[in-house]
């Protein structure tokens, strides 16, 4: 990846959805965006967060795939399911802790962000990072991101599962590990 890494900084996201539109322009999945921008707490806040594939070192989606359709290449990129193999079972959609894979029911295939490997393997930025006006999505070298106040973290705890990712999340300086208890984010009452 030419010494550059992908960094996501939700605090910079302004919700413009330029990334979604740029992603949907791509010829390999025209009209369908592989990145999505979510409102975190719509009634109370205008805060938004973009979600791209985090490209886990041990991708849960690929672990649960019964058809061996999801492959991780040597550069660490976890690819969209292979069309001849994907059986559209949605195991990956359910298993991904970040909610990245999308089941395209019209073509019966799971598609996901592949970090624009056709661009990044040639030294270009992914499309979303190219268009992001606030650089909430940044594809830069670690030295460049070091100038920011936030700290890049790529270790997540989902309950007992520890996930190390290729993509970094920018966090407040005191955070070393991002702890996520899924129950905290359920809006139903859990007894």
């Amino acid at each position, binding site marked *: 990846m030419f010494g550059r890494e992908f960094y996501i900084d939700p605090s910079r996201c302004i919700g413009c959805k330029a990334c979604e539109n740029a992603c949907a322009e791509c010829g390999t999945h025209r009209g369908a965006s592989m990145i999505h921008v979510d409102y975190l707490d719509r009634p109370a806040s205008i805060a938004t967060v973009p979600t791209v594939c985090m490209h886990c070192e041990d*991708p849960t989606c*690929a*672990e649960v*795939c019964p058809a*061996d359709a*999801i*492959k*991780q*290449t*040597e550069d660490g990129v976890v690819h969209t399911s292979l069309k001849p193999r994907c059986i559209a079972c949605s195991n990956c959609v359910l298993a991904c802790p970040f909610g990245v894979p999308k089941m395209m029911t019209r073509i019966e295939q799971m598609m996901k962000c592949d970090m624009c490997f056709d661009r990044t393997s040639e030294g270009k930025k992914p499309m979303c990072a190219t268009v992001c006006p606030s650089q909430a999505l940044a594809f830069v070298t670690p030295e460049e991101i070091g100038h920011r106040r936030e700290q890049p973290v790529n270790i997540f705890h989902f309950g007992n599962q520890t996930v190390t990712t290729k993509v970094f999340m920018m966090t407040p300086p005191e955070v070393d590990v991002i702890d996520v208890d899924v129950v905290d984010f359920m809006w139903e009452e859990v007894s």
Partner: protein
Amino acid sequence: MKLFRLPRQQPLWREEVSFRGADEQYVNRRQFAKFTVLASLGMFAGNAWILVRSWLRKEPSYPEQAVASMNEVPVGAVKQFQYPGPHDPCLLIRLDSDTYVAYSQKCTHLSCAVVYDRTKNRIECPCHNGFFSARTGEVLQGPPPRPLVRIRLIRRDERLVAVGVDTGSES
């Protein structure tokens, strides 16, 4: 695939079906095409080599060897001799007063020793009931794939002399 697998933490299926592209051990299309092309080239070269050798092959020369005198063998009798080497048993058969034939005694099926049956005028292999014509050496019945190897005879001053070997062709 490795021939021997050391015991590891991971189960076998995880090694065999890895989601990591670097660990894949499948033969990809290009490798398969390369193997096929190279194997075909190798076979072509091998066939060409065999063809060239068959063109260049010379008829082996056989020694002349006196087998018997003209009246040594009575009509319908058999004389055994060794030709062309000392370990190649052959049969000389006198079919009638003027006709002599000689064959290698090795059956062309599995090299059993064949015997001449005078009453039926044929050569028999007792191992698997293969029968050869006594006059021409052709296979009459049974498993032998080729006619019997025939020894070329000439007559020289009241003596029969073996001068060569005729290997039969595949029938």
